[in-house]
């Protein structure tokens, strides 16, 4: 989230699209009901189904799964055409005025530079024109045909209301009503918030869906505002923490990058990370990259990381491919190239696509280790459960070890919520049986491995032998020790640059926050963005003071929010070019003439003058980006792309299938379905009664939603002779499932490109383990392909067929 859960109470308009907040985030949704009840805020829901969120909405419109970009580009077009633009914001706080190279263009649904064979773009021309002074050229009058604004206008021109209706299946009158409601929020004193979740991420163009709304929010001037923002509702209670800590194959904590093979040494690695400002006087905060990186290396390897050995850069793995994401790992596993797989708090057999492929892959492992509080399907993938897991156990040779872990309620530590708050929690109970917490297990494994390297050597033992491991009990690092390590400390006295000769931080003391980190090896810090969470003031994550000056919803003394306890990112943009709040009733910070101050921690140098230093300090431009240069693989603007399995061809380019630059493995490409074979669009989702595949183990949750079902419209039910509560078979190119049918008015057929499109809703939550009735997940049916930028699987739009089925035989 750019903002915080508590801030949603400040909004005028909530748009829930690409998510189902009431259903999947019922506790956070309280802030929507608060905004509605106390400020008369309105709620719009755009979703293929009339959801629980829609049930309390003020306005609802249906949309065909996978067509969100067309809708969003259409709204942008409508706003521009109807002058619903926050002009001063757009001109100054976005890159609208910057000029783009002449080589950049778009036609037939593709941007310039497409190479069909490589399934990639040459992005050299997707960038600014650079002047003789080394800065990007611009035209503040927005007249130059090559300025971002005019390119955007041209780009969205195709997305007329008729186009939107035709592609999205959203009735034109409903779409235009939503445009009107959104357009009102271009006024400086009206604000919309966007709440989205996996309904946008789980597409082969998920990142571009989100870009589309981010651009709209910038055009309306709603980023950095109280009650505004782009608010990603994270799908697990600590998934924000997972991303922050870089638990992805291409990241290190704090969104730093694992090097690639093209970066064999430190100098090469750093050469592309200098982040020189692209406009004069701009902050470009990533210029501090080396401080965060060196401090991380010192946290990892202590005295073994020195200036002379480039901070032990040679210890870091170098990626030979962009990522070893889960899809790639299972592909490699299927090819027999993986011997051992560790599943820590992860149930991929239910959580990743094409279950048949996953089972085949797991069967080729020599050893599978599952660390989990529950008996997961993954750990029992080899067990025959009749139709629910019909495997030949005797033919599977994989050895499986289950290491029981504690669950979150038995642990101490911090969870990072969607709003970036690190909230410390304490154990609510003792773990059952032999369960151990994850850090205990990892520490014991590490100590045994290190001993083996010590005793027997190895190809490259140094990174393991020299790993910094300074915990009171090396077999059981405590949450406090780990948190302090993430905060960082001085390794020797650090001089105060403002007062030479005096000490800023004494050796051994915790740094106040990341602004004190150094790139000369004098500080260590495990995760720079968390720095400040446990400094010399103590555990700031454990703070529980809910006072709220100005009723602003900031709660600065409750827990700790990264970065530097800031609650709303880009909050400098809540004030105009003179530093006065756009809306005095929504003040966050303001310029006093000397400095910035207010209810939130300013997201700008406190003495940076308004009009000189622009609000988007992480960007080299100082502005936000309507045009993202070459930073995304599938284009600097979002363009309409169909899902890989779609009922209609891409109207912009009928030959184009899915996202033209998504990675597709050969076997998977052969398993994409066509609408001739599989006429119905399926989409997957959660239900409030359950949490993922966990709560089916709990008898109370299981009683509230006991059995796997699918939802279809009355029209499709009539067409197929299906009655509510009867059993149906749903099958696709990769598998089949049986479920109870829920026949509902909440799903209606849509008209898209001359065809009637029926949607089959497939909730997740059931499997072959646990207390609930045995069932399947949607992943038995879904395609093995991910987003072009981040490889999130396409769970939200795929093709199936459906028919009535005989009742389940009594066992």
């Amino acid at each position: 989230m750019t903002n915080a859960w508590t801030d949603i109470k400040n909004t005028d308009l909530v748009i829930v699209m690409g998510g189902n907040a009431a259903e999947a985030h019922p506790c956070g949704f309280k802030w929507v009901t608060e905004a509605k009840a106390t400020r008369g805020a309105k709620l719009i829901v755009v979703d293929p189904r009339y959801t629980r969120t829609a049930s309390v909405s003020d306005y609802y419109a249906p949309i065909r799964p996978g067509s969100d970009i067309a809708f969003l580009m259409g709204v942008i077009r409508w706003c521009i055409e109807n002058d619903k633009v926050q002009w001063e914001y757009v001109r100054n706080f976005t890159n609208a005025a910057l000029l783009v190279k002449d080589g950049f263009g778009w036609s037939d649904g593709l941007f310039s530079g497409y190479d069909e064979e490589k399934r990639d773009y040459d992005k050299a021309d997707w960038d600014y024109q650079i002047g003789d002074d080394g800065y990007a050229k611009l035209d503040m009058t927005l007249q130059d045909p090559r300025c971002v604004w005019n390119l955007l206008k041209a780009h969205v021109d195709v997305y007329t209301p008729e186009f939107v209706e035709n592609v999205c299946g959203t009735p034109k009158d409903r779409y235009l009503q939503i445009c009107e409601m959104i357009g009102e929020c271009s006024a400086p004193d009206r604000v919309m918030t966007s709440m989205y979740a996996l309904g946008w991420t789980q597409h082969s163009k998920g990142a571009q869906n989100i870009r589309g709304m981010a651009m709209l929010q910038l055009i309306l001037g709603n980023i950095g505002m109280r009650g505004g923002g782009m608010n990603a509702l994270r799908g697990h209670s600590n998934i924000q923490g997972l991303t922050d800590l870089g638990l992805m194959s291409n990241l290190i904590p704090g969104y730093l990058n694992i090097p690639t093979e093209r970066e064999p040494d430190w100098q090469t690695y750093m050469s592309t990370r200098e982040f020189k400002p692209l406009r004069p006087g701009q902050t470009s905060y990533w210029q501090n990259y080396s401080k965060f990186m060196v401090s991380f290396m010192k946290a990892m390897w202590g005295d073994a990381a020195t200036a002379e050995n480039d901070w032990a850069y040679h210890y870091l793995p170098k990626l030979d491919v962009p990522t070893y994401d889960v899809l790639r790992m299972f592909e490699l596993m299927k090819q027999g190239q993986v011997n051992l797989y560790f599943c820590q708090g992860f149930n991929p057999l239910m959580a990743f696509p094409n279950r048949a492929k996953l089972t085949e892959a797991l069967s080729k492992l020599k050893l599978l280790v599952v660390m989990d509080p529950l008996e997961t399907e993954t750990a029992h993938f080899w067990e025959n459960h009749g139709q629910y897991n019909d495997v030949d156990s005797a033919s599977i040779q994989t050895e499986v070890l289950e290491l029981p872990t504690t669950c979150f309620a038995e642990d101490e530590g911090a969870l990072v919520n969607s709003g970036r708050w690190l909230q410390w929690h304490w154990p609510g109970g003792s773990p059952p049986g032999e369960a151990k917490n994850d850090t205990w297990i990892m520490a014991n494994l590490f100590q045994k491995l290190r001993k083996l390297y010590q005793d027997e050597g190895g190809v490259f033992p140094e990174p393991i032998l020299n790993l910094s491991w300074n915990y009171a009990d090396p077999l059981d690092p405590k949450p406090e020790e780990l948190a302090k390590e993430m905060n960082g400390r001085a390794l020797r006295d650090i001089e105060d640059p403002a007062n030479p000769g005096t000490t800023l931080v004494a050796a051994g003391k915790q740094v106040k926050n990341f602004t004190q980190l150094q790139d000369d090896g004098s500080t260590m810090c495990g995760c720079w963005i968390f720095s400040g969470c446990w400094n010399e003031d103590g555990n700031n994550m454990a703070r529980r003071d809910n006072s709220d000056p100005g009723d602003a919803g900031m709660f600065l003394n409750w827990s700790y929010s990264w970065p530097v306890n800031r609650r709303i990112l880009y909050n400098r943009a809540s004030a105009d070019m003179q530093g006065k709040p756009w809306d005095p009733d929504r003040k966050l910070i303001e310029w006093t003439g000397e400095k910035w101050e207010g209810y939130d921690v300013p997201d700008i140098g406190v003495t940076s003058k308004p009009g000189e230093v622009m609000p988007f300090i992480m960007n080299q431009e100082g502005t936000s980006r309507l045009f993202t240069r070459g930073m995304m693989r599938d284009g600097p603007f979002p363009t309409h792309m169909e899902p890989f399995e779609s009922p209609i061809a891409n109207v912009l380019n009928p030959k184009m299938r899915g996202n033209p630059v998504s990675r597709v493995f050969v076997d998977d490409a052969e398993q994409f379905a066509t609408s001739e074979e599989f006429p119905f669009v399926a989409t997957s989702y959660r239900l409030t009664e359950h949490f993922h595949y966990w709560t089916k183990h709990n008898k109370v949750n299981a009683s509230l939603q006991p059995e796997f079902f699918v939802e279809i419209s009355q029209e499709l039910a009539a067409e197929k002779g299906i009655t509510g509560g009867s059993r149906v078979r749903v099958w696709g190119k990769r598998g089949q499932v049986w479920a109870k049918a829920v026949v509902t008015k909440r799903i209606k057929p849509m008209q898209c490109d001359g065809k009637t499109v029926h949607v089959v809703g497939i909730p997740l939550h059931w499997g072959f383990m646990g207390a609930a009735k045995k069932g399947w997940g949607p992943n038995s049916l879904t395609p093995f392909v991910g987003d072009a930028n981040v490889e999130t699987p396409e769970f939200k739009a795929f093709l199936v067929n459906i028919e009535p089925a005989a009742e389940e035989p009594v066992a």
Partner: protein
Amino acid sequence: MSDTAPQPTTAAANPPVQPLESNLLPSDVVRISATPDVPQPTRQLTKVAKLIDVSKCIGCKACQSACVEWNDTHPEIGENIGSYENPHDLTPDMFTLMRFSEWENPATNELEWLIRKDGCMHCEDPGCLKACPAPGAIVQYSNGIVDFIHDNCIGCGYCVTGCPFDIPRISKVDHKSYKCTLCSDRVAVGQGPACAKACPTKAITFGTKDDMTALANERVEDLKSRGYENAGIYDPEGVGGTHVFYVLHHADKPSIYSNLAENPRISPIVEGWKGVTKTAGMAAMGVAAAGAVLMGLFTRNKVEPEEEEAAERLVQDREGI
């Protein structure tokens, strides 16, 4: 800290951290089933109420699970019969149930998904209590709560007939009647009902009837401003008003909310019984002294032999015996 609990004012407050004496005393009972001439209490407790704002409800069923957890019931893991309602009706193990109805508003042609939390309404004039022939099986406190005292229940089912909302359910296991207690045990120590505590959107709130009525009026205003011309409060007079009441977007059509009673009244037959059952009930069971009637009323923490056995089984299961 005083040694008795404060009057409950809200479900949002944190619970007291020290054990408190119950603030619901035998002497606060104003009506007792099949018992004439209940001595009138010397004090009048503030009337309480639970307000269910249907327009804020997201149907998440947190109330249902909180109810199960607090009352330690064990609903069966059933099946899906083509709807989101699970279980499919109130049961002796499910005192509250989200009921879902899909309604196409003929005035706007808009679909509305109406989700109503069903359960005991705690009538000011309780039909169950009037119908009950078992002395002391149903009581009403001066704060409005209508509670079942299971030790005195004979499982005859008259309360089901007497209830204008079809709420009580008879257990096939112990042949006692069950329904929502408005968490009388929580209210007695200054807390709100478990469902209200768990509700994430404040669709369920708890406090004094006056406060809740004021809140309900605010909500009705908000709904009217959003175009729900017939928004209103459902607090039916036919049963003297209720201590669980609703805010409805369409208060002119209660039945669209999964058959909420349009005009609930106690059946004239039950009213007719009243005199008869008094006599018949008394004759059958003998006239019980008020103290005996209330026996078991405040001893709900007593461990029954069946519970001992169940606990023993659990321990054995865990130890793998």
